């Protein structure tokens, strides 16, 4: 029996269709306004080719089941496989964001060759399988009309180019701003931040500074708005802009990330008996639980995420606060083509449910249902680093997954002492035995191991 289709709250913007959750599957309806362009794209074979190449999420036409699915009004119904974890641009590392931008431009360029184009440029239409970008909106692919303007240009700038420039040119993480402004970072705002000496760059001068000036001017004058609708961009100009942006973005890098790889490379992950014991314990839990999805909270550069994959986890989503570590994790996932997605998370302030009706973009809680989690060398960062009482920290971690491993560094551990070095110890309750009792009240302790005299790993199970 198939589950009732529940509309996806983030899919309302394009009236051409809606997306529905139906158990294991994702369904997409195509309405009257989009059926012609969808049919063209579908019959041309372009959708199938992109899906077979892994660039577009796979699809099957299930229109014949529309009445049974409760979607009788739809002209076409597509069924898609579920992506393990939906992530948002404000959770992406620089490299993920860059990969998404390049994937968008490449798709636009490839579509143009077949006389198709993307009708928008929203970053939310790019998701990741491992760290490989995959496009999820089949209805954005529409026939290209010769000379039409690039309607998604401003959106591309706000959601891809400007955040990447902010990162590469200003060495500022754009996630905080992007999270507060779901449409992205406007050229008018970014233009004010770019110092004069950094403006002498063709991309910044045109797409940021000039666009901002023109936008500010056009807001002041209301005349001529009808004429804007008749603007024309020759195909060669469109392709030129796409190629220009592609070559600029491909060269971007973050100044403060340059040294990162070297800093982490020295820390070989199996180098100490403690690390070997941790890897063995992680593998034991994963082999027993066989999680389809595992969260690695505080994944660092992905050592234990990779161990979990080796032990049989089908996919891992890692979370960390350190962008440098995330860059290393990205590179490992990309080089190994691993089903491992490392994302940015401030556990003390995770992504909220927001957008229209506070439902358009989901919060961290409830985004997915991981079967297991790892929280290694993590709890002291919130319990001591962020003053979250130990019982609340334990509640939060245990509520994320039915089973998992939590590492508890004792107060005497150097990692904890480093956090206490600059402040008074106001944490009398931060203690291994207290933690064991708190965890025992919330779950069954399956097994515990002291990997060092000052570090204990607890394997818990809620059932």
């Amino acid at each position, binding site marked *: 029996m198939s589950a009732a289709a529940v509309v996806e709250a983030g899919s309302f913007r394009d009236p051409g269709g809606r997306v529905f959750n139906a158990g294991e599957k994702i369904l997409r309806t195509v309405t009257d306004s989009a059926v012609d362009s969808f049919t063209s794209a579908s019959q041309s074979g372009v959708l199938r080719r992109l899906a077979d190449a892994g660039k577009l999420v796979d699809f099957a036409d299930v229109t014949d089941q529309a009445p049974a699915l409760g979607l009788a009004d739809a002209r076409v119904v597509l069924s898609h496989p579920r992506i393990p974890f939906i992530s948002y641009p404000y959770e992406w590392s620089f490299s993920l964001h860059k990969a998404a931008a390049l994937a968008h431009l490449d798709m636009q360029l490839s579509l143009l060759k077949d006389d198709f184009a993307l009708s928008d440029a929203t970053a939310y239409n790019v998701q990741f399988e491992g760290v490989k970008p995959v496009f999820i909106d089949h209805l954005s692919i529409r026939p290209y009309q010769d000379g039409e303007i690039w309607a998604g240009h401003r959106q591309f700038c706000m959601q891809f180019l400007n955040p990447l420039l902010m990162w590469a040119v200003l060495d500022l993480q754009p996630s905080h701003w992007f999270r507060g402004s779901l449409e992205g970072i406007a050229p008018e705002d970014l233009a004010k931040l770019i110092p004069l000496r950094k403006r002498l760059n063709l991309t910044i001068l045109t797409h940021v500074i000039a666009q901002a000036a023109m936008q*500010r001017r*056009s807001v002041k004058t209301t005349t001529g708005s009808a004429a804007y*609708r008749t603007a024309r961009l020759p195909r060669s100009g469109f392709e030129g802009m796409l190629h220009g942006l592609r070559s600029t973005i491909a060269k971007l890098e973050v100044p403060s990330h340059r040294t990162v790889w070297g800093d982490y490379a020295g820390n070989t992950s199996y180098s100490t008996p403690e690390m070997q014991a941790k890897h063995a314990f992680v593998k034991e839990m994963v082999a027993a639980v066989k999680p389809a999805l595992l969260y690695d909270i505080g994944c660092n550069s992905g050592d234990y995420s990779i161990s979990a994959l080796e032990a049989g986890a089908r996919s891992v989503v890692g979370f960390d606060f350190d962008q440098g570590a995330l860059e290393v994790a990205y590179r490992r996932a990309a080089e190994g083509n691993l089903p491992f997605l490392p994302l940015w998370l401030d556990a003390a302030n995770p992504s909220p449910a927001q957008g229209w009706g506070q439902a358009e973009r989901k919060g961290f809680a409830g985004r997915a249902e991981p079967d297991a989690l790892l929280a290694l060398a993590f709890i002291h960062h919130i319990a001591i680093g962020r003053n979250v009482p130990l019982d609340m920290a334990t509640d939060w971690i245990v509520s994320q997954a039915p089973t998992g491993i939590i590492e508890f560094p004792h107060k005497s551990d150097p990692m904890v002492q480093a956090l206490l070095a600059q402040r008074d110890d106001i944490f009398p309750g931060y203690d291994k035995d207290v933690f064991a009792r708190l965890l025992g009240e919330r779950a069954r302790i399956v097994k515990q191991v002291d990997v060092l005299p000052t570090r204990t790993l607890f394997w818990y199970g809620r059932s």
Partner: protein
Amino acid sequence: MNGKTVISLAGTLAMLSVAAPAHAYLDPSTGSIILQATIGAIAGGTLFFRTLLHRVKSVFSRRDTGAEK
């Protein structure tokens, strides 16, 4: 007349030169449209020369590898 005025005027003139319909649910916004009308032609030209340069380069690099053998 300052620089920004010149840019905007040039853009508006370029934009009005030819016309084709644009269909989209997305509001492209005027700043972006003026920019596209202004730099579209330049971007197309740049791409043309870049492709040309790439072809010339590839001819020479092919000769180089040939000479080494």
